[in-house]
């Protein structure tokens, strides 16, 4: 460290320090600030890239260009947004097909993940002794690390033949199988955030409850869970958002082929979600799709983005009190 000379005079001068160090401080601060501002750039980039072509899509419907009209052999208008299938190649842009697909998959996923995730979290936080917890919690986190393609393959090759087809006599690919796969994916998310929420409940509350004579079950159900409820709700909302945004499991296991999907509310049938439709579109053969069809990808992406953003904002209000992990 540089030694400052002791000199009489202005105290501010004496404490100010080496000008070179001060300049370096300014530089470091600038560099760090620009790093933080990157995140704003990214947000603008995302919204921009979605909106740019999503708007083009809507305009393309309202005022179709000649190429698209020729290819579709039918009039094009906003009416194309309502039909019985999502098939961009045939100019069927029934968004509700994808929306319902996403909803069904998410409902199935949350039906699986909520009880299992919450149950596991309650056990780990309230009942498990520290040594057991030290072993089991990391294993659960391992499940969190499994990539979604792997779970998609598992849903296709194990869940579907061994569970869905056996019990329900469904086809080889179904929204149900995909939903179960997505559910497996979100179990660790629910468990992790819920467990953090419950562990942050002060033990004084538990002790007071025990002091009144309540057993563990009563304490857990009547004291701990109500105290942690905002964190628990947050975990469910975050998990729902993740489930809606999940692509690969549905892409592999829900069976929409050739970038088209029929409208259905039956989870035993094949279908597609917003995310899988986007992936299908992007992996289709290039050059054979109309501009309108191509832009539909961005339109769906925009709808998806708005939905997940809304859910995340709501969850953020709840999760502010609980540590966010993933």
């Amino acid at each position: 460290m540089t030694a400052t000379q002791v000199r009489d005079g202005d105290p501010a001068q004496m404490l100010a320090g080496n000008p070179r160090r001060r300049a370096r401080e300014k530089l470091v601060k600038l560099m760090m600030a620009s790093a933080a501002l990157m995140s704003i750039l990214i947000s603008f980039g995302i919204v921009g890239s979605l909106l740019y072509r999503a708007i083009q899509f809507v305009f393309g419907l309202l005022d179709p260009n000649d190429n698209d009209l020729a290819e579709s052999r039918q009039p094009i208008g906003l009416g194309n947004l309502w039909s019985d299938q999502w098939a961009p190649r045939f100019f069927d842009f029934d968004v509700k097909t994808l929306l319902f697909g996403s909803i069904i998959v998410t409902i199935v996923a949350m039906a699986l993940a909520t009880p299992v995730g919450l149950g596991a979290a309650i056990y780990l936080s309230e009942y498990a002794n520290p040594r057991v917890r030290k072993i089991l919690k990391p294993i659960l986190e391992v499940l969190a690390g499994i990539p979604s393609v792997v779970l998609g393959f598992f849903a296709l090759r194990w869940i579907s033949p061994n569970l869905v087809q056996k019990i329900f006599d469904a086809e080889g690919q179904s929204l149900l199988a995909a939903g179960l796969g997505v559910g497996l994916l979100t179990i660790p998310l629910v468990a992790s955030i819920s467990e953090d929420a419950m562990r942050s409940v002060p033990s004084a509350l538990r002790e007071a409850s025990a002091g009144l004579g309540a057993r563990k079950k009563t304490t857990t159900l009547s004291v701990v869970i109500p105290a942690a409820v905002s964190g628990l709700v947050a975990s469910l909302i975050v998990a729902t958002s993740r489930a809606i945004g999940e692509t690969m499991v549905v892409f592999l296991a829900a069976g929409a082929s050739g970038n088209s999907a029929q409208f259905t509310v039956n989870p035993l049938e094949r279908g597609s979600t917003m995310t899988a439709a986007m992936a299908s579109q992007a992996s289709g053969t290039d050059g054979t799709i109309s501009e309108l069809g191509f832009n539909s990808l961005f339109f769906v992406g925009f709808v998806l983005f708005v939905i997940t953003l809304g859910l995340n904002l709501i969850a953020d209000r709840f999760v502010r009190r609980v540590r966010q992990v993933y």
Partner: protein
Amino acid sequence: MALVEPILRRDTSERVKQQIEAGGVNLPNLFFKYVLLGSLLFALLVIGILIVDVVGDSWSVLSDRLGIFLSNPTRTSADESGVFQGVRGTFWIGIFVVVFTFPLGIAAAVYLEEYAGDTRLTRMININIRNLAGVPSVVYGILGFTIFVSLLKGVYGDTGLSRGNTTTAGGLTLAILALPVVIITSAEAIRAVPASLREAAYGVGATKSEVIRSHILPYAAPGILTGTLLSLARALGEAAPLILVGAVQGKLGPKTGFFELSQLGEKFTAMPIVITDFAKQPGDQWQPVTAAAIVVLLLVVLGFNAVAVLLRNRFEGRREG
């Protein structure tokens, strides 16, 4: 009253004594506990089934032709297909994430925790980053596509890369995807540094950057490392953004070198995409190869995860108290 009191007292105390000493099984409580344990074990069981199933499926490939499997490019027949290009793609994507995201993410976290005041702007940036962490990965794919494939198409014009769907594009897209989580976990780790440490450093006259460099970052390093490793593992397992950016599914052409830097400007694929492609093939003969590719990816991803969790457990124990 005087007669009843002793009776009441004795009655109650006996009943309490009975309850404490009786040691009987309280059915509802036990049931509850085992239902909870059941859900935990269910989750663990499913992981077990998944891993056993995948490893079992892949055994024929891994035991017989591991070397060939790792060094062959993707081919049209299941017996000859290998994952070389996938491993290479995943490797270089990892490099992009490490080089781009780690420094940027940690710097941003340092700024947000140490330099930025509690202003409206800072709060907005924080909310913004948390939202970015929750954006679906496909949307990052769209961002990557727009920036690297669409906008830069003009730049690529003469180089024969007509579409811009290069390794670089894929790597940078995933680097952007990993950035918010790195920022959040690093910020958390920095926030956990005790104030006394900071104040002691300032007290001996260190400037802000010196305090950060010599006290805060070393203390927060384990937490930061955990977060970055987890983020890297997640990025390496993502397929959707790569599909959007134009990773090649299926045959990618002849095999070229692993460390050739010129490859960064060429079409590419990665392990998750290879798995997707294999998994989509009809029939059963691709199943073992898919499973083998999954094992390779899992080793990498779960490996990073395990290291991160072990690190965190080890340092969490040390920090407490």
